[in-house]
């Protein structure tokens, strides 16, 4: 499930994954949290890192500022 659509917006699974990593966590924990297969979580995180939405810190992943803004488009 590609998380980032060609137009830069997020697919349903992309949005769920981005929201999951609001609190920093590992790919394994994110997979458990949203019930998505681990291989798709890893692929999705890689995509969102490339899109500047997610940052990687060792084995843990979190939102970038751009990611946080995308996850909550209404701001706040």
């Amino acid at each position, binding site marked *: *499930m*590609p*998380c980032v659509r060609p137009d830069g917006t997020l697919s349903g699974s992309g949005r769920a994954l981005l929201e999951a990593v609001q609190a920093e966590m590992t790919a*394994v924990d994110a997979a458990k949290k949203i019930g998505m*297969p*681990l*291989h*798709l979580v*890893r*692929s*999705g995180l*890689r*995509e969102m890192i490339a899109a500047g939405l997610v940052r990687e810190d060792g084995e843990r992943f979190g939102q970038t500022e751009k990611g946080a803004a995308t996850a909550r488009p209404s701001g706040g």
Partner: protein
Amino acid sequence: MTVIEQVEARPGLPRLNEPAPAFEAVTTHGPLQLSDYEGSWLILFSHPADFTPVCTTEFMAFAEIYPELQKRGAELLGLSIDSVYSHIAWVRNIEEKAGVKIPFPVIADLDRKVATAYGMVMPGESKTETSRCVFLIDPKGILRAMIYYPLTTGRNMDEILRLVDALQTADANSVATPANWRPGDKVIVPAPNTTELAEERVDAGYECTDWYLCKKSL
């Protein structure tokens, strides 16, 4: 035939108990790398072409055993030399016509990088289609078993499940499994490899046919 010609005709093929060839591929579930499956067993399998009959029966059969594979921590990943659009059309058609949802990703290997690395194309059968190959890859990315069946002959899901069970049982218990083994059957104690160990084996309390052939229950 010189060495160079041989290379051109026959690329190196994957070998058991070595790291499975790495790949990054376009799939129906987005871009996937082999390393994305680290920690899971992976059954990488190829089919000749989308919208062909034996392949369709196999896809439905793989979908049918997918829940059993998930219970065993094993994932499925299909592959053919078709576009991702053809793959999508085909899996949608299978769902529409046969009522079977295909839950696993399928690699669109149009540049044949994965097919070449795994020796899936048999020019004697077809220069444009992958044969019916199965690669069992363990959670550390090591290739553990390979099956190559021809275009005409659908695979047997029961044997693929049995193979996963056998490999997982061997790993978990440091044992081996005999011919025709099924979960619950006795397993094989590794043979002694010195004469001293062979003598000790006689009194070890296993069920033995001779010093080298001993079984036990798990």
